[in-house]
């Protein structure tokens, strides 16, 4: 039997030291709403940080792996991506 199958269970294995403010920003929420039927960031983000909530994009930056995929993969270059402030963000214990 394999454990940690769902992304929620996988994220549970990761240690984060979350800042109080987000390092990820959707620049124009209207673009997600009107131009992007696929909401592709909600699919390829490896930490499921982006969740579409009916009319807006919820950004769960606290669980971000800081990989950069959303910045590169957003078809409308609509995500402003920075590293979290020094001392915050993902903490790799092993890998």
């Amino acid at each position, binding site marked *: 039997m*394999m*454990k*940690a*199958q769902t*992304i929620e269970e*996988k*994220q549970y*294995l*990761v240690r984060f030291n979350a800042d109080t403010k987000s390092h990820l920003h959707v620049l124009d929420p209207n673009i997600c709403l009107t131009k992007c039927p*696929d909401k*592709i960031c909600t*699919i*390829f983000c*490896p*930490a*499921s940080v982006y969740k579409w909530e009916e009319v807006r994009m919820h950004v769960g930056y606290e669980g971000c*792996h800081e*990989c*950069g*995929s959303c*910045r*590169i*993969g957003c*078809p409308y*270059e609509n995500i402003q*991506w920075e*590293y*979290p*402030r*020094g*001392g915050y963000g993902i903490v*790799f*214990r*092993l*890998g």
Partner: protein
Amino acid sequence: MEWGREPYNNFTVLRAKFDQWFAEKAVEQGALLVCETVAVECIVENGRVVGVRTDRPDGDIYADVVVLADGVNSLLAKQLGFHREWRPDEVALATMEILKLDKTVIEDRFNLEPNQGCTIEIFGDATKGIVGTGFLYTNKDTLSIGVGTLLSGLIKHKMKPYDLLEYVKNHPMIRPYIQGSEPVEYLAHLIPEGGYHSIPKVAGNGVLVVGDAAQLVNAIHREGSNMAMTSGRLAAETIIMAKAQNDFSESMLDQYRMKLMESFIGQDLKKYKDATHHFERFPQYFEQYIPMMNRAASQMFTVDGASKWEKQKKIWRDLGSTKQKFKLARDMMKAWKVMK
């Protein structure tokens, strides 16, 4: 077996531990290590990089030469205009899990002597027709299992990277290797796989770019850490030379680019300059030909009373019409060309 003796061919490492150990080596040589600090931009004066601005109060740091080693995202080189934003087909998204497993079980299961390790590269069905590969590495008392595909492939196939990882973990060819293990960490990371054509400008006035930030990864051979370390060494050698002449201009530091291109890094990236893009552009290799080869091998080795000649004929027939066979032959020639 010579790989099991000094100087050893290569190592599997846990980066969280390795990076600290490696940084300590620099500190032993007199480096000052500043952690928990983000370098937010290069300080540019009169067209010359003279330092970095950090997110600490009064956090400006000045230097004769700044070596940009900020990894695949390479935000600082991008700010300097050394490259545009990477395209989704220039980066691979890899997800990985660290699985805890008893040391003796690992040694038994993978046929290892104590302190020996093994790497298994997983190619084909693991990425469901998307350009990419999977991997399974042994560590002392953990395994590292992961799968990476071009970000553009995930987007095109609308596939969740962690679903692909689960698929690999549960694949009947893989599952027995990791049976009984316990996931202890999950990680996601981009790998720069644009290759030769994506190498940005790597030297400017007072600045050099090394490692992932300069797209120095050989995706075909899974080499990257060695290229990062070697490019760092070449950068250091160039800076020592520049310091001797007190000249940190681009024309002086450009020696680094020349050394880089003459070394195995530049040569190997040149060898495979069109490989990834070829397999990305023509999806039939991963979508059709690999499964076709698997089917052919499976038929050939199935013992069912049919003669090998009959099997060969059937495999030949299954390749399709004469036109399709010509296309296949042409594609194989093209694959040889981009790999040779």
